[in-house]
């Protein structure tokens, strides 16, 4: 799946790189009756940038994508491309490439005709569109699949045909709805890398929807996290991981326990079972210098497990032990109903062992309520 195809000339052409500039949603809101599916969401995706819209089901991420594509009209707010308002432009005149969750390949056409469909709609001659369709198929590693019926393709192949079909029209932006969710786990990991490589090569704004934060972390440059129609945070994966803006963001990113803390500025005090520890914290941008209620995220790689009883350590009992590649992850039940995951290189401890847990240097993310 390497080598730039002729069909994707735009992405190779330096002057034209990025089509018509960034795709932006400006305060878009969409209501379905009483229900507000998307509530005042704004973000911008630059040329060549990959933004993942992440959220649980019902968070409004697909509706947001559909507004970007033009299948839904926002009740308020605007969609712009390169600064030009395209809110009222119908999908057939936006020139975006869209990959649907179930691919939406036309079952009555062979692979080639599926890929060439967008060119046919643009009145490209039969010979030209065949040449371009073949090139696009080659770019996704399916050069020999042209005359095959859609029904004979595997899930991964269907996904690549859908991608080729979206790319061949030299789109102004690429929109992908759960592009990885229908693939089996092995294929899914391989496709993450391929997808990222291909989207980067095209050089237009790319927006993709996923409910899987691992997919988002692996593929996206930036992540927009949605919950109940509201945008919680937009940022790079590192920002979301290390400096979540809220408890909700931290909870969604997962991989850690969120425990109450007393905010002291650059540190915070966490007390478990009467043992108080001061931890270095990163404060999210824009929060008050001293929070009334605050929480600290204890990540498995920022804690240390020991079988000896330290005075300043939190005491607990191993509830669960899980082998995770190079490390063992222990779930430890501490006092006050708090449990934490701890990574350890040593596999000596076992379930029901009494252990002590100490925080490493940090810094630990501090989040408000």
């Amino acid at each position, binding site marked *: 799946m390497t080598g730039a195809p002729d069909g994707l000339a735009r992405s190779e052409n330096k002057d034209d790189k990025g089509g018509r500039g960034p795709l932006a949603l400006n305060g878009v809101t969409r209501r379905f009756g009483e229900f507000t599916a998307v509530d005042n969401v704004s973000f911008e995706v630059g040329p060549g940038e990959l933004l993942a819209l992440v959220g649980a089901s019902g968070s409004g991420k697909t509706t947001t994508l559909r507004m970007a*594509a*033009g*299948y839904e009209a926002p009740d308020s707010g605007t969609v712009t491309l390169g600064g030009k308002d395209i809110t009222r432009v*119908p*999908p*057939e*005149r*936006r*020139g*975006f*490439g*869209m990959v*649907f*969750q*179930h691919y*939406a*390949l*036309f*079952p*009555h056409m062979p692979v080639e005709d599926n890929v060439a*469909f*967008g060119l*046919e*709609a*643009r009145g490209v001659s039969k010979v030209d569109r065949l040449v371009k369709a073949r090139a696009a198929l080659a770019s996704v590693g399916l050069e020999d699949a042209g005359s095959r*019926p*859609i*029904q004979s393709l595997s899930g991964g192949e269907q996904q690549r045909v859908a991608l080729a*079909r*979206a790319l061949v*029209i030299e789109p102004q932006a690429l929109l992908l709805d759960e592009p990885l969710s229908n693939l089996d786990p092995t294929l899914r990991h391989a496709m993450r890398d391929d997808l990222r490589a291909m989207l980067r090569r095209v050089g237009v704004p790319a927006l993709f929807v996923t409910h899987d934060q691992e997919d988002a972390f692996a593929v996206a440059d930036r992540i927009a996290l949605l919950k109940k129609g509201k945008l919680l945070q937009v940022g790079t994966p590192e920002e979301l991981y290390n400096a979540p803006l809220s408890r909700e963001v931290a909870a969604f990113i997962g991989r850690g326990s969120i425990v109450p803390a007393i905010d002291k500025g650059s540190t915070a005090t966490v007390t478990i079972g009467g043992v108080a520890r001061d931890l270095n914290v990163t404060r999210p941008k824009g929060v008050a210098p001293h929070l009334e209620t605050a929480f600290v995220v204890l990540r498995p790689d920022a804690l240390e497990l020991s079988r000896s009883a330290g005075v300043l350590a939190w005491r607990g009992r191993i509830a669960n032990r899980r082998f995770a590649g190079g490390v063992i992850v222990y779930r430890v039940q501490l006092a006050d109903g708090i449990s934490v995951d701890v990574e350890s290189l040593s596999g000596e401890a076992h379930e029901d062992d009494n252990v002590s847990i100490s925080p490493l240097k940090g810094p630990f993310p501090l989040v408000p309520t």
Partner: protein
Amino acid sequence: MKASARRQSWLIALPVMALLLWTVVYPNVAVIAGSFENGLGHWREFAASPADREALWTSLVISVASVFASLAIGVPLAFLLGRFEFPGRRLLRAVATLPAALPPLVGVIAFLFLYGESGLVTRVVQRALGMAEAPWRLKGVGAIVFVHAYTMYVYVFLFVSAGLERFDATLDEAASGLGANTWQRLRRVTLPLLMPAVAGSALLVFMNALGSFSAPYVFGGGLRVLSTQILASKINGAMGLAYVETTVLALSAVAGLVLFRWLDSKRKYTLASKGGRTRRTIRSRPIQVLMTVASAVIVMALVLPHLMVILVSFARDGAWTTQVLPPEYTFENYRRLFTEAELWKPITNSVSMALIATAANLVVCFIAGYLIVLRKFGGRGLLELLVALPWAIPATAIALGLAATFNRNDLLTGRVLLVGTFWILPLAYFIRDIPLVASAVESSLRQMDASLEDAARGLGASWMMTMRRVILPAARPGLVAGGLLAAVTAVGEFVASVVLYTHSNRPISMEILAQLRALAFGTAAAYSVLLIFLVLLMTLAARSFEERLA
């Protein structure tokens, strides 16, 4: 499958197969053989007869025209109701399938009362335009296709509506995202994907129109079609020629079937049942008004035949001559139906013959469906063919086959004298409804997990207990639905009846025709209303039976 199980399958299958071979295949073979009884003589006679050549040609023209007329009404209506939201949509949807509820002959009569020379609509137009004569005559190919379009567009409408409902809306969105405009999407995506539904319903219309008897019989005037030609030859005693005409009619039907199957065989995809498209609400005020007015007109056109039959059923016989509407109304027609033995007889005849035929359908089709779906034995393909066969043969041909076979007692050639007795009509109804009931039973059984039978046997249940407690409950929805359809079609059956009835077993449809000929419009209409009422009653009975069991 073990040898003992295979032997058991054959043991159950043989009586059913023998019955079907005897009653379905044998009569048709007898017709074909009869057409050659003096070599090619009858065939030469057919080929030399201008009337027969005209009949063949007219039959084909009417069938093809009926297909196009039904498509022209059914497809746009399905799109309109499936894709758009407008005031009046629900009412239009509710009455859109109403024409299918009219027994064939009743539909024809209703059209006569509305659009015939002295019909309501004809008279209104005539008066409005101040014409001395009726503005049109309800005769010939046009009139037949008109009635066919009204009753048969329902197939197209139902098939295409179902196709649209299953249509994956994201395919349409994908096409628009790729830059296709409305027309390009319709031509390249929506219509090609609806082709199976369109082709399937077109085939149904073609087969129905080809075998149609009532419309050509009542409106034909001097027009000849194959089905009426067959009856005419039989009445004239030219049985040899009737056999040739029947064979030609059946061959035309089979040719149509093969042609449609061949056209459909190039398709390799099925519609994923996803749907999910919401109807687009029409917001433009003028278009909204236009669509509401249009649907009001369509609703009127669809309901008018039913209303007209009800109205005329209260008209005093003989009083309605040149007036726009019948001038005198009375309950007399209904009173006579229930009090005069001669008029009551057809009603008991129809009901008892329909029930006998349906009961036989339920038994035979349950066994056939069980064998076809759940038993993988060597005779399965043959059995499938046997139960589907009556569908491909027009009813007139089935009836003539029975007339040719069961006309004397001759055990050596497997003939029993049934013609002229009560039993010939229940037999004809039974044969006509086999495909209907069998396919309903099969589809019910296909939804059952095939391992349930094994599980029951594994738990120690006997074969009888497995049938009673596992298979029969699984087949029940199909038996109820198929049985209802069979009873409804049998109680109003006309096409086979007109070939085979005698005075003592005459069904309602024949009595309607007799009353019509005697110009007793009120009585004919009262019978028609009664028929509609019987259909309604059976539907309600089937529904409450199903609810009580479920």
